[in-house]
């Protein structure tokens, strides 16, 4: 029984990483007004991993999907890759902690927090890479305001998907 449980976990984790990587790569092809504004749909995979598997399972999904996605698009090791991985890891960690401590937030609130953490850590890495704290003035509103919208969108889609999971699939339910 134990190993069966473990197998199921591994399988779900793998599916989520694949889902995240594909969403992340597909997102590159969505036309967008400003290059750095992405809906962050790949975070759906992280949110689902946290909810369905456990608070710390968002991290492997985040790391896995960024590496896999970067391999698909051929940009591993670039500045954009560093920004992606920091954003994905920090947001997975923030969402995991919020889920673990049972913060009185719904999936929407957790997803918005994750989107904010994602954008801010990407901005932090960008500032470290080019060292111009000056850009913060313009980028903070451009990062945090869309993050609220994309966080809500990701929350909505994650909820829609989680509702379709069979009840016995969700750990700790």
């Amino acid at each position: 029984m134990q190993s069966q449980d473990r197998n199921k976990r591994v399988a779900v984790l793998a599916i989520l990483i694949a889902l995240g990587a594909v969403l992340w790569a597909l997102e590159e092809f969505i036309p967008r007004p400003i290059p750095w504004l992405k809906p962050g749909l790949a975070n759906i995979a992280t949110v689902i991993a946290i909810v369905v598997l456990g608070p710390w399972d968002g991290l492997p999904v985040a790391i896995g999907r960024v590496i896999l996605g970067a391999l698909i698009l051929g940009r591993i090791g670039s500045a954009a890759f560093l920004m992606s991985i920091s954003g994905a890891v920090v947001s997975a960690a923030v969402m995991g902690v919020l889920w673990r401590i049972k913060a009185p937030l719904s999936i929407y609130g957790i997803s918005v927090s994750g989107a904010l953490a994602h954008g801010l850590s990407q901005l932090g890495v960008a500032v470290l890479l080019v060292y111009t704290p000056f850009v913060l003035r313009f980028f903070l509103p451009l990062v945090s305001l869309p993050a609220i919208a994309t966080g809500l969108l990701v929350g909505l889609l994650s909820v829609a998907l989680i509702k379709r999971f069979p009840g016995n699939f969700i750990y700790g339910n």
Partner: protein
Amino acid sequence: MVSKRLKLRVWDGIPIAIGIIIAWAPLFLLTGDGEKVGIVCAGEIIAETPLSRDTTIAFESCVGPIRIEVSDGYVSVVEASCPHKICVKTGKISRPGSAIICAPGRVAVFIEGETENDAITR
């Protein structure tokens, strides 16, 4: 435990509010160490004032009185005694690195601060 967290809650307003606050933060945090207006006449510094504070500075240039106004983050020479009034016609400046020059009066008004890049190429 999961089912309770599928619907939007009142507390979800907290991350949203934090996001909105962060968006406005630069307005409050970064204005203090912002740009300064420097005014030089005949090689001497006449005045140095923050661009964010509205003031009027009037003094005697090499050709007569000159009046410089700082308002709403813009600097302009509003009155000058030079013949062609090029400094007045320069209009309002606001970007760090830009300047108003009055050659006959030997006056330079410039904005000090972190200069924005026009572009970055890679």
